[in-house]
C-alpha cells in the first residue's frame, strides 16, 4: 500500500509534530508514504477559490499531475487540501471542456492532467488498511478515554464531489476512535464549523465559533477533542488559549489530530511525536491514559 503523500502548507510549515505522528503511525501499520517532488500549496480553498475558481482548479491540477507521474493515489492530511484536490480531480474527470481549458494552461509548464489517480483522506486510507490490521498493532488501547470528534467540513462536503461518509451524520472517524479502545461521545453542535474560513475577514466572530464548540465539549466532559484538519487544529488548539470567558476559567481541552491519538495507541511516546508542541497542554489526557 503506497501513496503520494501530499503534505500541504499548514502541517509541514506550522504544525510539523502532526507530520511526525502521521508518518510514524501510517508507516507502523504498513502504509508507504512517497514524497512528492515539487508539490506546492494545494490551490488554496479559501482565498484562491473565492477569487478565481478556475485558477484554484489549475493550481490543484499541477499537484495532481505530479502524483500521476508517480503512478500513485494521493493521501492528503488536511481537509482544505482534500477538498481542493478532490474537487479538481472529480471536476476535471467529469467536465471535458474544463479539462481542455486547464490542460491548455498546464501545457505552459509541460504537464497534462490525465485523470489516472484518486485523492484520499487519512480516514479513508486507514479504512483500507483495515480494522484488523490496525488492531493487531495496538500496544496501548485507550480504554476509558472520552473523545469528542470534530470531523470538520471539507472531509465531508460538498457531498456530490467528496463522496465520503454521510455529509451531515458522519460515522467513520468515530468508528476509528472506538477501534483504539476509546469512547466517541455524542455532543451537541458536533457539525459546527471551526470558523477558519471566517478568520481573514472577522477574527473576533471566528473565535466566537470556537468558543461555542469548546463550551459544549467542556460540558460533555470529554478528555480530548480529535480533528483531522490542521485548520481545525489551529482553531481549537491555539485559539483556545486566546479565549477569555467572563464568568469561567480558561478552557483546558487537549486537541489531537487523529494520527497523534493513533500513535499513542500504537505505543509511541508523547515525546517522540512532539505532543509538547501543542499550544493547549495535552497533559490532562496523558494522565488519564491506561
Amino acid at each position, binding site marked *: 500500500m503506497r501513496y503520494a503523500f501530499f503534505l500541504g*502548507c*499548514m502541517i*509541514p*510549515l*506550522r504544525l*510539523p*509534530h502532526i*507530520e*511526525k505522528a502521521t*508518518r510514524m503511525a501510517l508507516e507502523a501499520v504498513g502504509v508507504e508514504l512517497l*514524497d*512528492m*517532488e*515539487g*508539490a*506546492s*500549496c494545494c490551490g*488554496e*480553498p*479559501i*482565498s*484562491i*477559490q*473565492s*477569487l*478565481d*475558481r*478556475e*485558477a484554484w482548479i*489549475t*493550481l490543484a491540477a*499541477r499537484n495532481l499531475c505530479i502524483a500521476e507521474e508517480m503512478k500513485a493515489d494521493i493521501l492528503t492530511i488536511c481537509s482544505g487540501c482534500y477538498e481542493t484536490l478532490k474537487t479538481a480531480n472529480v471536476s476535471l474527470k467529469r467536465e471535458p471542456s474544463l479539462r481542455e481549458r486547464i490542460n491548455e*494552461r*498546464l501545457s*505552459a*509548464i509541460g504537464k497534462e492532467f490525465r485523470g489516472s489517480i484518486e485523492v484520499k483522506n487519512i480516514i479513508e486510507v486507514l479504512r483500507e488498511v483495515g480494522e484488523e490490521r490496525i488492531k493487531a498493532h495496538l500496544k496501548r488501547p485507550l480504554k476509558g478515554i472520552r473523545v469528542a470528534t470534530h470531523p470538520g*467540513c*471539507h472531509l465531508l*462536503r*460538498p*457531498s456530490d464531489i467528496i463522496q465520503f461518509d454521510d*455529509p*451531515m451524520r458522519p460515522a467513520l472517524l468515530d468508528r476509528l476512535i472506538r477501534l483504539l479502545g476509546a469512547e466517541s461521545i455524542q455532543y451537541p453542535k458536533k*457539525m*459546527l*464549523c471551526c*470558523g*477558519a*474560513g*471566517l478568520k*481573514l*475577514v*472577522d477574527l473576533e*466572530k*471566528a473565535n*466566537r*465559533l470556537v468558543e*461555542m464548540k469548546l463550551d459544549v465539549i467542556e460540558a460533555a466532559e470529554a478528555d480530548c477533542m480529535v480533528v483531522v484538519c490542521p485548520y481545525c487544529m489551529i482553531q481549537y488548539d491555539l485559539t483556545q488559549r486566546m479565549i477569555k470567558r467572563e464568568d469561567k476559567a480558561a478552557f483546558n481541552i487537549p486537541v489531537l489530530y487523529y494520527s497523534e491519538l493513533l500513535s499513542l495507541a500504537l505505543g509511541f511516546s508523547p515525546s517522540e511525536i*512532539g505532543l509538547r*508542541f501543542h499550544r493547549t497542554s495535552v497533559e490532562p489526557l496523558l494522565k488519564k491514559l491506561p
Partner: protein
Amino acid sequence: MNEEMPEDLEVLIKEKVVHCFQCGSCVGSCPTARAIPEYNPRRMMEELILGRWREVLSGRMIWLCTLCHTCYEVCPQGVGISHIIVELRNHAARLGLAPPEYLNNVRQVASTGWTSPLTGAVQRIRKELGLPEVKMARVEEVGRLIELTELRRMMEEKPG
C-alpha cells in the same frame, strides 16, 4: 458600480437562484449566522432574485461565508448556495471588490509556492523531531500558472 450584469451571473440567477423558495434552511444551519446574526444567506438569494446584484456584490456579506457547505447539503431546492457564494465572490473580485487579505494570500503563494513562510523556529522543531527538510515547491511553475489566470490582473490592481 455602473457595470451591466455579467452574462454568466444572469445565467446563474435564472437557472439556480430562482429555485430558492425562501424557506430559510440555509440560515438555520449556517455557522456564520450563529456568530453574526445579520448574516443571512436566504436574504442574499432574495436580493439576487429581486435584481439587486450590485448591492450583493459590493457588500460585505458574501465574504463572511466559511464555505462549510452545510447550506449546500440542507437546501430542499438544491440551489447550491455555497457554490453560488463562490461565484459571487469571483464576480466581485473581477470588479476589484475582493478583501485585500485574500489578495495577500495569493501573493504569498505566487512568490513562495506556499500559504505560510518556512520560519527558523519550525525548521528547528522539524530537526528536533527528526523530520526531513521541507521539499521546496517548484515556485516558478506555480507563478507561471498564476500568470495565466485572472489572479494576475487582480494582484496588479490592488497592491499591498
